């Protein structure tokens, strides 16, 4: 199955970016349930666990995250968690995205924000 991946730029969507950022923040503890809770508390928006799963697996496919299994956790009946960790590619994607935004931001003429004249 051929997947078309945009190799030139590290393109990620807005939600993926949030997931990637939070995975990086939660370093060593980043797994789906915690990421979901973190998104909800930090951004105030409700997300379904499946959306987080989907984003995590896609980011892994794109090489921005790597993952490994934790030790068994008793809370989940002895099941292990899949923990995610940001890769250099992921960091690059975040940096690019941030740079792009900053650069765009700085180009806005001051007048654009002055409405009452």
């Amino acid at each position, binding site marked *: 199955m051929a997947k078309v991946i945009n190799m030139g730029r590290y393109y990620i969507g807005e939600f993926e970016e949030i997931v990637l950022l939070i995975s990086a923040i939660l370093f060593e503890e980043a797994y*789906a349930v915690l990421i979901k809770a973190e998104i909800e508390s930090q951004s105030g928006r409700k997300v*379904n*666990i499946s959306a987080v*799963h989907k984003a995590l697996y896609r980011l892994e496919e794109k090489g921005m995250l790597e993952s490994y*299994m934790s030790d068994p*956790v*008793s*809370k*989940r009946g*002895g099941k292990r968690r899949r923990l995610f960790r940001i890769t250099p590619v992921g960091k690059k994607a975040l940096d690019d995205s941030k740079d792009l935004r900053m650069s765009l931001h700085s180009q806005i003429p001051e007048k654009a924000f002055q409405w009452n004249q």
Partner: protein
Amino acid sequence: MEPINNLPKLPRFLFLFFKWYCKSEKFEELHGDLEELYIDRLEEIGKTRAMFHYAWDVMRCCQPYAWKKLESQINSNTAHMLKIYLRIAVRHLLRKPGYAALNIFGLTLGIVSSLVILLYLNQELSFDNYHKDVDRIYRVSSHFTEADGTKDSWVTTQVPLGPTVHETFGEVEQYVRFFRQGRTRFESKNVNYMMEDVYLVDSTVFDVFAFDLIHGDPATALIKPNSICLSESEATRIFKGNNPIGEILETDNFSFEVTGVYKDQPKNSHLIAKALGSASTNQQMYSSERWGGFGIYTYFKLTPTASPQVVEDRLNGEIMDTYIRVIFDRFDLQVVYEMLPIRDIHLYSEFEGEPTALGSIDYIYIFSVVAIFLIIIACINYMNLATAQSMRRALEVGVRKTMGAKRGSLISQFIAESVVIASVSLVLSLFILSLVVPVINIQLGTSLDFTQLLNAEVILVIVMVFVVTGILSGSYPAFYLSAFTPSKALRGGGSAKRSGNPFLRRGLVGLQFAISIFMLISTFVINDQMQYLRNKDLGFDKDQVVSFNLSRETVQQWDVLKQRLLQNPNISNVTTASSIPGGGYPNRMRSVETNEGNMEDLGMNELRIDFEYFPTLGIEMAQGRNFSFEYSTDTARALIVNEAMVRRLGWTDPIGKRIQFSRDSTVFHRVVGVAKDFHQSSLHDPIEPLLFAPSLENPRVMVKVEGNYLETINYMEDKWKELFPNRPFESQFLDQNFVQFYEDDRIRGNLFLGFSIIMIVIAALGLLGLASFTAEQRSKEISIRKVLGASIQGLVSLLVKEFVILVMIGAVPAFVFAYWFAENWLNGFEYHVNINLMLFALVIVIITLVTVATTGFHAFRVAQANPSENLKNE
């Protein structure tokens, strides 16, 4: 390593579904996440909602990232073919979205309605099945046959029966007795709470019934006198969430200490208790040795090896001989005990005095048939539409066959198509169902529970429905289509005659009509009867009568209250009686003078009434007179009977007949009047023979109100508060009581109406599809006829006629069955309408109109088309 089996209790069906679709290598991490979420939510929002969230998550996670790869499961070639079948099926459906929508919509309607019925049946059939060792629990009830052959059956038994039998019978492991207290006033910290369905019970109740104690110890909670256990909702109502254990509740007669709180019983219980007091509280009643009075519920739990038949025989043998014959033989009254399994009570009991309204096994059958009808109609639709489409597919079949497709693979392909449709409908149905169940509950007054669908049995039924609709309805078109010979199929065109077996298809449509007609007639008959019940003259004036109760204390002040009430010009009459119309009455042994002048012992239904009873309720005297203060002996010696009693006793001259209240008594009461018959209870039952004895102090008050209700009721309340400032005043209208009798009938009537409308809609949908197909098929014929001078009306009627004939043919068996059903159903009512044959005609007209409207639309379109359009290709 932790043990894996400390899984939270998740719905098995959802868990298996998840396991089914999820890749095994991802199962651990994904389901672990869901479990963790579930456990977090459990604390946060409670079990039910957490479960719904879990269900939602399972559905949401059903996405490609979690899916198994088909290839890894099955032989890769088969899997590949299966994928292709599904893909082609989906493409076909998408190519004809209108047709697919019609099909899916029809099937969904059918499935939703039959699932609603399934829920209803599941609830009805699951009554009392939650008790531990339910197969060993029986209730003892009593049959009576009197000297003159009058028969009665009561759910109740005598107080000493339970303990005596438990002591002497090795087969009886445990017993429990329920002493019904009815509506009771409880006082806690000077606030009054009225509570329905209060019982005093033996402390053994927890060994027999599955009351789930949240607080308190089942072994000791009800042993001490003056202990009481409350249902959770009542405990919350009274104590507002504070721990009620140890609190004191006062009633008119006793003072209780709360020793337990139990979870509210499931709705599928034949006996619902809001509070259970310890029976030892009422020492006098509890230890009564009277074998003559039947008034309490007795339940036995047998030992695992005991045979219920043996116990019943011993009850009717030794118990009867030792304790009961000695009392009743001299009255020539026969008593026979019957043991009814607790699970059968709701559907099979025919005893009087049940604690809650019962269902009926007949309705279980009727609704099962309705559900099957619905599925049949929906399947027929699918079959018709699919075969009608066959011509479009003939070319495809021809090409496939030429390319070497085997018949088997073609069949699989067509079945795959119907399975796709059925799956989409099923998923859609479950979704719709979760939305409509609450609406149905509100609209129809039912208490269906959507989560019941997660039961194993229910899932089994759903799977069966799915298999039947998907595979069975798909198989006919599949076998039919795959049988095309390629040469004929490829030649195409001009093959209108071979578009499916027209007889079979017509037969199926005819069957649909027959079912719809049957349902519609039945619905009309039911509505007719309901109307009749609402409007029937009950023989007394139930409108504008307000009733309320007097307690043992308030009745002392009744005379004062009565005078104050009568001062209001809007109150024309007040009366008191031992029960209101619609309420029950005791049956007591009395010595009665026969027509020949001998005295005979008979059970008499007895109401105690004051002198204003008949005038207040507008009941007239057929003979003789009402009780009157002009006769000084009336309060002590006079009696009134109703006409039914005169008929029962065969009196030719009832006035002056003598009745002794006990055989040894020296007092002879005499009948002074015969009241016209009125319906003391529901119209399901015949008018019972009644004896009216005069009594000036009675617990039920009825007030005839004229003019402004609200003002008058407020006035009554004010007067009540003047005399009894601490007691709540609660009144109800007499006719409310009567509405309750027909509540179940009303619900069933509404369900029937809903289902017959749905059936007609489904049938009409199928017709629409079929008509569009036949009209198209015959478009060339129509065009030629048109060129030769046929009128549009003529052409439309030509096309419509075919279907109208089917309606007529379908009507014949439908009429026969509908008549038979209506007659049987109506006979269940002692008073009922006659079957109105005009209804049958009306139904035919309705169905014909629907048919003409659906088929005529397409016929008209084809007939209007320009002939040259259709003929230019020849």
